[in-house]
């Protein structure tokens, strides 16, 4: 596949929302180990706002900007800050109605860069960054010109990154106070972001 069209991207977002909804309770339970126990609800609400905003989109830049605005305005909390920042950052680095692999790499790198401005967490801190950073990096080093291969690589890296959070000690945010108690459980944010990126790939490959 040479291009990611806007319609396909919308389908990927819808699939991500469906997959995340199926695992909403699991994400909340993971969050309850060291947090408020609301992450499942928070990510479903935030991504729902994004999917709704995307429906009327006709080109990437405005659509992603509208998605970022609606995520941030319709929901609150750290989940929506990060997801909203991701879409706004993507919007800054994209144009047109279809993207080749270079365009997709640039768009995802822009999303990650803006998320990185909102949180100090990096790989190893047991946060959503453990899924997002490896996924975006895997895209950047991919040499394939096939859009499917790009998302396949991102999904594999996200799954590996999220799995690694099981053995990590929470090191950032409120969860830090619970330290050792967090070991043995995957991070809720890494799990939900991994689920999203994985759903992107599944949607495109099927």
């Amino acid at each position, binding site marked *: 596949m040479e291009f990611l069209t806007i319609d396909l991207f919308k389908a990927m977002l819808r699939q991500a929302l469906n997959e995340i909804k199926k695992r909403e309770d699991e994400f909340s339970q993971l969050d309850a180990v060291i947090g408020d126990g609301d992450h499942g609800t928070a990510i479903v609400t935030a991504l729902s706002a994004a999917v709704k905003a995307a429906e009327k989109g006709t080109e990437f830049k405005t659509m992603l900007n509208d998605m970022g605005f609606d995520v*941030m305005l319709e*929901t*609150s909390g*750290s989940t929506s*800050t990060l997801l909203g*920042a991701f879409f706004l950052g993507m919007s800054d680095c994209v144009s047109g109605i279809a993207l080749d692999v270079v365009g997709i790499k640039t768009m995802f790198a822009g999303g990650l860069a803006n998320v990185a*401005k909102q949180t100090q967490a990096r790989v190893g801190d047991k946060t959503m960054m453990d899924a997002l950073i490896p996924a975006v990096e895997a895209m950047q080093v991919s040499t394939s010109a096939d859009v499917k291969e790009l998302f396949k690589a991102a999904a594999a890296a996200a799954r590996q990154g999220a799995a690694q959070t099981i053995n990590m000690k929470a090191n950032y945010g409120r969860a830090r106070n619970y330290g050792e108690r967090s070991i043995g459980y995957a991070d809720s944010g890494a799990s939900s972001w991994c689920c999203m990126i994985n759903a992107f790939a599944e949607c495109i490959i099927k």
Partner: protein
Amino acid sequence: MKTKFINEPENVTPELLEGYVLCYPDKVKLGAENIIVRANPKDESKVAIVTLGGSGHEPALSGFVGEGMLDCSVVGDVFAAPGAQRLFQALQLMKREAGILLVVLNHSGDVMSANMACQLAERAGIKVKQLVTHDDISAGIGAPADDRRGLAGCIPLYKVIGAAAEEGKSLDELIEIGERFNKHIATLAVATGKCTHPQNNALISDLPPGIMEIGMGQHGEGGGGQKTLVSADDTAVEMVDLLCRQLQPKSGDKMMLIINGTGATTQMEHNIIFRKAYKELEARGMKVVAGRIQEILTVQEQAGFQMIMAILDDDHIDYLNNRKADAPYWTTIGK
């Protein structure tokens, strides 16, 4: 068991704000739900000062909306940051060519909402810059600013930059004045006893009788070590010493000293503490030129206080002492 005079827990914030604006209609009003603004707004050619934070800390932060201080306070639920939506709504209300200075206390929820709202505001053509306060020194002397929480030191900052904004200083000038004030201010809290969350009665701090904790956070989070409760003079001297280790004032420096009661400690005790802290500073060769003893930022029925100290430049002294402020909880006649 109920311990507080409230109605439905979820109505605590709107009801306390309603009571507040009903009492001071000549000074403050509700600009929108959970947004307090001045009853007589200042000229739009001047920079607006906006802040945000959870309720439960009354009179902070909304008590300082008024001439010469804040233009707008955006209120979250008890101890919770307001969402970005509410803050973005306030930034739209305050939009002006001169710009908006958003004062953010360094707490993760507040910082996140502020970053989110500012991102949206920039995209919507609203000129806004942030000034983050991090006066708490309980993370350790010389700890990086990011690790230090914003405590009641934001309130004298509102006075300083509020007066400067009233004078017509530009957004960039206000940032410079404010950052210079931030650099030379430090706050340390001491707590004793227990304190409960008003909405769910959860104990947010619970120290055994006869014990105090220096370095307590704004929501009862522990910080420093627990130790035996000692006399007012000994407590004051220990806290002055820690604050001076952070600020490194020199003999002859002009200082601000504020004792902020956090809820259940008496004015009597605050006065006794202030007396010793003042004398201790003078004994070290510093001159206290601006003082205040008042509950400016409380933590429910938390016993204890915050000691706020700053080394002042001449313009800061002028803004603090000589310029008019007329907010419900801070009045300066001015010269």
